[in-house]
């Protein structure tokens, strides 16, 4: 199965960034993901390209976490320039997202930002697609409850 590299590059990058919270590292991991994908042509024709890409990216992010020293802080957790904009635009939604568990945050990103099918998400997180749907619904309810329906829109 072939894919559009320009489209998938952005999606894998977002997924990596969400996990490592560092633009440079996220981009390195994204490129490493595609290079490793090229090294395994035997998997290219089994119609599981998306799952393979996200699995490689997830493993690379996990490796990156293990390499980090505990004292290091994420690069852009607090940025002076963005404070005002964040406060004005989506400060409350970002806070609400930050309160979600990491797994639910990743699932929300994969499903609604990267538009990954539910069954692929289920295979990535080793759960059924019904469990994925329940998790998505639970995360959205939490966001609605925290912000109110109007604010989310």
């Amino acid at each position, binding site marked *: 199965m072939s894919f559009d*590299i*320009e489209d998938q*590059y*952005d999606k894998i*990058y*977002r997924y990596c*960034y*969400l996990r490592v919270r560092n*633009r440079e590292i*996220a*981009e390195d991991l*994204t*490129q490493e993901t*595609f*290079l490793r994908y*090229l090294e395994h*042509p035997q998997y290219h024709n089994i119609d599981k390209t998306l799952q393979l890409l996200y699995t490689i990216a997830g493993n690379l992010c996990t490796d990156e976490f293990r390499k980090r020293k505990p004292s290091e802080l994420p690069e*852009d957790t607090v940025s002076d320039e*963005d404070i005002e904009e*964040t406060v004005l*635009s*989506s400060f409350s*939604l*970002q806070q*609400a*997202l930050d309160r979600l568990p990491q797994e639910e945050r990743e699932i*929300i*990103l994969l499903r*609604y*930002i990267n538009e990954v099918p539910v069954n692929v998400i289920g295979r990535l997180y080793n759960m059924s697609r019904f469990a994925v749907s329940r998790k998505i619904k639970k995360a*959205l309810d939490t966001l609605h409850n925290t912000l109110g329906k109007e604010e*989310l*829109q």
Partner: protein
Amino acid sequence: MKKSEIDALKKAFDIPEPQRKDSFVLSYKEKLKKNNRKLRFPIAFRYASAAAAAALVIGLWGTLNQTIEFRSNFDNCAVITESTAPPEETDEIFPESGDDSPTTVPDVSEAPDNIQPENIILPDEYAPPAVTTAVSSGQNEIALISTSATACSGEGTITETTSAPAMTETVNSQTGTISVITVTTAPSESPDVPPATATTAEQTETLVTTVATEEPEYSPITTTAEIEFEPVPQITTAATTQDSQSSMEDSVSGRDFTVSPSVIYTETSNSVDISDYLETDDSEFDTESTAPPSAAPENSGWQAMACNSDCIVYASIDEIIYTEVDGKPYTQENLTIYSIYKNDGTLCPSDRVSVYLPGGYMPAEEFLKNSNILLDIPENSVIYDSGGSSGEQQVNSTYIFFLKNGSGSIPSAAFQLTAKTDVSVFKYSNGKYVSLGNSTLSFTKSELQEFLG
């Protein structure tokens, strides 16, 4: 989720745009092109492998063909080599020695009185080749069997030549002895040849290292028999003992193309003739309706029937079997072909074939099950249906058959009569061949040959 909500989520995740995307995408596409190139072997390798594969297939096919042909003729022997020579007017038959003891070969010249040779006319292309086969069994015996089928001349006479002596050499390595048996045979009907002789000589020597055996001296005895065409031809050579007889018949008989019927019904004397119950001609079980309407050989004479036939053979009926085809009674006749007047290229003299013709015996229960006729017949009785034939054909009698290849539910390896009934079967009577089903149809042998060209 709505688009506005998704946009809000994107904003909330606050993910910066990647900076090195374009350069990586370009390099990635180049790498992808390199990876997609297929590895192609040099053209010489590809042609060499194709030739090797073709040679392997041809070799396997040839081996398989030889094996099948051999087994059909000699089921009880293990053949190692087989060579074929051009047709000769020589007929040598050496029965295989079955044990280590010296064997007395029966005198084949002592033929029973009922064997009458025949003047058989055969085209030259039907002359079977002489075959020499070396047979080696697992008991350290070496026996040379030389067999040639009867060669046929094209001028109305058949010359059957028996060449003798034969030498069967049996070596027993366990006992270290060698037994040499010399057998001389000659036909009895030859006036110029002394009476049949069967000489058995046994020589026993102790083998130490090398055994040198003298070449057997052959002094062929030729017998020429010119025989009339009718009445009953006999091709097989009779012998005095049962074993020798069967082995010799196998060696001269042709291929067996007979088929096994799906079911066999037995003939009974108290059968019920179905024609007695069918008053009208347009009943369902009217066998005339099965004949092809366009052929109408009965009305067009035997010439039209000859044109519609695939094969015309002179053969004797070996066996008559009552069976069924599509639930209707049929009769299977197994024939041994003596001569061929018209051929589709599949048959040779001495071949055995099966012919299906409608009608025969069938249990009433089976008959009523497969037909819509309501008859007041006891279920335990046996139905006889003539199938439109006269029913005059008999086992061990010879006729000229006009045959077509089997079609429909009839086995494809079998034949059917051209006219479906015994109108296509001709019996020799008063110098002519007369149709069994229609006595107005008749011809002589020369007329048939002249018509067929």
